[in-house]
């Protein structure tokens, strides 16, 4: 990895992060939105690992593990919510859920 350097890793991480964000904001299907959130969290992990490797300390890996834990919890709750939404309006299309309208 010594020829590659940290920048490419960071660029991949940012790319993944941007794709995830675009997906979260633009997709109408709730499940896909949740997946894109997973994607964004992954990109963060990548950055952590990249820095860990660059600085030669394993702390980054510990953080990556913790991020995975949080991601799991978040996915569980998120899916529970999606089920609730589905039960409410038999659809997961977020456009139908605008009850918050001011």
């Amino acid at each position, binding site marked *: 990895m010594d*020829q590659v350097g940290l920048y490419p890793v960071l660029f991949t991480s*940012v790319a993944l992060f941007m794709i995830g964000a675009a997906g979260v904001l633009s997709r109408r299907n709730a499940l896909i939105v949740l997946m894109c959130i997973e994607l964004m969290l992954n990109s963060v*992990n990548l950055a952590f690992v990249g820095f860990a490797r660059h600085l030669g300390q394993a702390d980054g890996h510990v953080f990556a593990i913790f991020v995975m834990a949080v991601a799991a919890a978040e996915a569980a709750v998120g899916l529970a919510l999606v089920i609730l939404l589905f039960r409410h309006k038999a659809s997961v299309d977020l456009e139908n859920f605008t009850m918050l309208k001011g």
Partner: protein
Amino acid sequence: MLHAVIFYFFAIMTILAGLAVVTRRSPIAAAIALVVTFFFQASLYVLLDAHFVAVAQILVYAGAIMVLFIFVMMLLNLRGSDPGTLPHIPGRALAGLAVAGLVGTGLVVSLEGLRMMDMGPAPDDFGTIEQVGALIFNGTYLLPFEVASVLLTVAMVGAVVLAKREV
């Protein structure tokens, strides 16, 4: 030199898989694309000498979370999103890209102080489970580890309460 080529290959494949997740119309296809992304990501971890994290990535993400997703999709027996309307809102996609891009470049630019080029060879036991385990259990991360476990239990109970049918 070979090392760099492999790295770039896996990096590009990860990004393409990520794009696939966002662009597939049906959630099933998106889920599979996501699994593929996880695998490529794991390989990137290996290249970065983060062996334990790579394995954990496969086990936790690909194994557990994606199974959960597939399970829920089966439960809600979605037959792909309804045909008529556009699956996504173009305007907001661009906005999302712009915003995330802004954040990303902002961060990367602020790092220009670090000497970025050569990382030098990693020590032999770097990234193995022993090192990470040592760090967590007798090092500084013991408390966060315990908190993470509490978090997971709470999430589990929450998910059950939310999703169970009224009795």
